C-alpha cells in the first residue's frame, strides 16, 4: 500500500478506539476506504465454512439464535484446519430461521439498512469481498443495533466477507434463498475482464441453485451495456425468466434498491440512469427421460 503512514495510523487508531468504547456511534466512512475493486480469482485468505451446516450463523444474528446457554461463539472453520476437526468441533448454534435474502456485493451496506425495517421477519445477509468495507458495515450494524435497542431494529441484518463467485455454496443450501440483490456491480468494462463479472452464464446456475423456485434476482446498474449483459445472460439461462415491468414496479423493494444504496445515491447526484431488471427462478425442468416417458 502506498498510503502515507499517518493516514493508516489514524485509521487503525480510530477503529481500535471504536472497538474499545463499544460501538455506539456510527462509524465514519473515511476510515474504511478501500480500492473499489478486488480480484475474485485470487486466493484471498477468506474464512468460510466447509459446508453450510457448519456455518456459525448465531454469531451474525445473535438475537435469532436458539437458546443454548453453554455454547460459546465458534469462529467459522478455516480452510487449513486439519481434516476431521470439523467433526469434533463444538456443535454450532442453530438459528430459529435461515437467511433468505442475500445482497451480493453489499458495499457500504445502504441497502441492508434500508431493508431491515421493511423485512422485519426475514434474515438479510450482505456479502462483500473487501475487508475494510465489510468491517465498516459490521461496525455500522453494531452501532445501529445498539442505538435502536428498544425498537429491536437491525437485528435481522448482518454482513460477511466472502467471495460469492467461488464460495456461495459453502454458505447456502439448495433453495435456501428467496431473494438475491445484485446492485451496481463492478462493470468490468474491458472485454478481457468480462469473466470477472458477477453475472455470467455459468454463475447464473449457482444463483439458481441457492434460490428456491419463485425466488427473485434483483439487478440494478447505471451502465447500459452491463444492464444488457445481465438481461442477456439471465434471459438466456433456462432457470430464469424476466419479471414483467408492471410487476417490477409494483415491488416495493425495487424503489428501495433504486434509492438507498450508496451507489444509487451517487448516480442520482450525477443525474445518471438506473437500469433495473428482475428475474424469477423457474422450477427445474423434468429430467429428459421423464419427459419422453
Amino acid at each position, binding site marked *: 500500500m502506498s498510503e502515507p503512514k499517518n493516514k493508516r495510523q489514524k485509521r487503525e487508531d480510530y477503529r481500535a478506539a471504536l472497538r474499545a468504547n463499544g460501538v455506539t456511534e456510527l462509524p465514519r466512512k473515511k476510515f474504511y476506504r*478501500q*480500492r473499489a475493486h*478486488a*480480484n*475474485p*480469482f*485470487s*486466493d*484471498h*485468505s477468506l474464512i468460510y465454512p*466447509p*459446508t*453450510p451446516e457448519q456455518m456459525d450463523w448465531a454469531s451474525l444474528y445473535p438475537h435469532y439464535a436458539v437458546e443454548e446457554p453453554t455454547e460459546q461463539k465458534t469462529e467459522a*472453520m478455516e*480452510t*487449513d*484446519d*486439519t*481434516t*476431521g476437526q*470439523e467433526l469434533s468441533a463444538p456443535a454450532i448454534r442453530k438459528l430459529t430461521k435461515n437467511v433468505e435474502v442475500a445482497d451480493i456485493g453489499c458495499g457500504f451496506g445502504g441497502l441492508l439498512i434500508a431493508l431491515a425495517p421493511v423485512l422485519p421477519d426475514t434474515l438479510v445477509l450482505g456479502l462483500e469481498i*473487501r*475487508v475494510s468495507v465489510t468491517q465498516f458495515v459490521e461496525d455500522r450494524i453494531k452501532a445501529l443495533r445498539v442505538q435502536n435497542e428498544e425498537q429491536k431494529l437491525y437485528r435481522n441484518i448482518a454482513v460477511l466477507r466472502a467471495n460469492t*463467485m*467461488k*464460495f456461495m*455454496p*459453502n454458505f447456502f443450501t*439448495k433453495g435456501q434463498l428467496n431473494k438475491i440483490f445484485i446492485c451496481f456491480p463492478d*462493470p468490468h*468494462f474491458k*472485454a*478481457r*475482464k468480462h*469473466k*470477472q463479472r458477477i453475472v*455470467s*452464464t*455459468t*454463475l*447464473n*446456475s*449457482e444463483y*439458481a441453485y441457492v434460490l428456491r423456485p419463485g425466488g427473485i434476482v434483483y439487478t440494478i446498474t*447505471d*451502465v447500459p*451495456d*452491463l444492464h444488457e449483459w445481465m438481461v442477456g445472460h439471465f434471459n438466456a*439461462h*433456462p*432457470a430464469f425468466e424476466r419479471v414483467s415491468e408492471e410487476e417490477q414496479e409494483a415491488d416495493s423493494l425495487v424503489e428501495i434498491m433504486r434509492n438507498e444504496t450508496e451507489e444509487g445515491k451517487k448516480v442520482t447526484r*450525477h*443525474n*445518471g*440512469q438506473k437500469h433495473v431488471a428482475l428475474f424469477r427462478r423457474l422450477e*427445474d*425442468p423434468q*429430467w*429428459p*427421460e421423464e419427459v419422453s416417458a
Partner: protein
Amino acid sequence: MALPYHVLKVHDGIIFAARGSNIHSFNSNFEPISVWKYPVKQEETNGQKTESETPAPTVEAEESSAPEGPPAKKRKTEDGEAAAVVTEESKEQEAKEETTTEGQTETKTDGKNQQEVNRRSRRQKQKQKTEGAMAKNNNKAVLETPFVQGMYLTTDGRHLVAITGADKTIWVFEHDGAGNLKQLSQRAMPKRPCALALTPDNKTILSADKFGDVFSLPLLFTPAEPTAAAAAATTTTTSEVATPEPTPSAPATPVIVPPTDVAKAQQLSVKPQANELTVHTLRNLKALENQKRCLERQKAAKLAAALQASQFEHTLQLGHVSMLTSVAVAVHPSHPNRTYIITADRDEHIRVSRGIPQAHVIEGFLLGHDEFVSRVCIPEKRGDVLISGGGDDDLFVWDWVSGSLLGKAAVLAEVKKALAAEEAEKVTKVAVTRIFDVQQGEKTQIFVICERIPLLLVYTLTSTNTLEHTQTLSLPGNPLDVEYLKAESKLLVSIDPNTSSETQEEEANNGGVSSILALSSDESSWKVAPTGGLKVTESAEADNSLSPQDLQKLLYTTESLRKTNKDDE
C-alpha cells in the same frame, strides 16, 4: 534423463503409454506396436487452419488495434517452435483473449510487418519484465513442452482422446483394436484443458479447463476446409506412425472463441461500455474517447478472428470460478437413464450437475474437503459411490446423488506408517494424484497414488461403503499412473525411473530401470511380478532437451494446487 511413461491407458490387452509428448502402444507382453509422435516443429493447430495463407494482415490488425491491451499472455519462443506459455497470473484472463503472435516472423509476412511485430514483441517482453515476471521465465520454458496430460478411451475402445498441456490441444485418434493409432483431429481449446470425460454414448467429449469451464465437443469432427497438413495427417496409414509433415506456413495461432462469439463480434458495438453519464472526470472522458476509437478498429479485427476461429463446435455446459481438476460423467444405479456431470475444483468443491442437455441444473455439491480436490473416482460396479481425494489427509467417500459423506479413509497416516521413520517425518502432507478402481469378481479395490511418494496404497470398498486399507506396496520409484490389464489380472504401475532406488547392479541384471511395473495378486495382496514389466535403458532413452528439474516440474504438478500465498486485500 529418462522420460517416464507418465500416463497409461489400457484396452483389451493393448497398453497405451504416453511418454513426454508421444504416445506409445504395447501389447500385454510389452512388445512395442506403434508410436504416435507429437508433430514437432509444426506450428500449433495448423491442422485446423483454414486461412493459413492470409493471416498476416489479421495479426497486424490485432496488434495495432489493442495498443493498451494486456501484456502478452502467450508468446512464441524465439526459434518459432510450437509452444505457448500460460503465465501463472493468467487466471483472470478472459476466455476469448487473442494470443499474441510475436516472435512468429513468418516467410509470408512482409518485411514491414515483421519489423512491427518484432518491435511489439520486444516492448511487451520489457513490460513483462518490469512487471516482475522475470522470475517466472525459467518456468515458462519448461511449461512450453506439450506433455500429454491425459488419455481417455471410449467404452468401445475405438477412439483414444488425449490432451496436451502447453498447447491446450485435444487430440482424437482412431484405434484399430490392435494398438495402431490414426490421428483424426486436433482442436486447440480456448483455455488449457485439465481433464476430459466422455459421455456414455461415446459421442461427446467434455473438457474441463483451467478457468473452470466445461465445454462439450463432438468426438468426431471434420475441419471445414482441411489444409494440406491436416489431410496428410488423416491419411497416414494406420500401420505406421502418424507424423504429419511440418507445414510451411501458419503464422498466426488460430484464435478459438466459442461459436457465439462470432455473433458477439458481429454485434460488438462501436460505443464503449461506459458513456458520458457514467464517467465523471475529465481524464476518464478522454479515456472514453480513446476507447471509442479503439473499439471501432477492434470490431473489424474481432469479427475476422471470430469467424476464423469458430472452426469447430464447442459448447459451454457449466462452469466454476476455479480451476477444474477432474470431471466425470456418472450414472446412478437408481436411475439408469439419467446422466450427471461431476466436476471437482481447486477450491474444495465437487459439483454434481445434470448431464447434457440440462447441465445448467446443479443437483448438489459434495462439500467437506479442506484442500483442493484433484481426483474423483466412481467405481465401475459401484455407481452410487464416489471417492475423492486431493490435498487433504484423507480420501472422502460420498453418496454422491444425495450429497452425503459416507466416510473417510486415511491416506497420510498410511503413508507415514509405510515409510521409514526419518522419511515419514518429512512427509507432512500428501497430494493424491490417482484414484483407480479395479473390479475383481465381487471385490472392488481402490488404488491410490500420492505425488512423489514411492508407495501404492490399496483399499477395498466394502459392501457397507467403507473404504478399508488393505495393503501398502513399496515401489522402486515414484508411481505416476496405474492401469489394469483385465485379461491377465495384472496391475500396471508406471514409475518415474529417475527416482528409482534400484542399484546399478540390479539395473544391469534387469536390463534397465523399471518404467512400468506389472503387479499380480494372490488372494490377499499384490506384489510385483518378477517378469512382465517394461524396462528402459538410460542411454537409449536419453532426452537432452529437459533438465531433471524441468521434468519434475512437468510431472509433479498436483501439489502446486495447494493454496499458499493468500493475497489479502
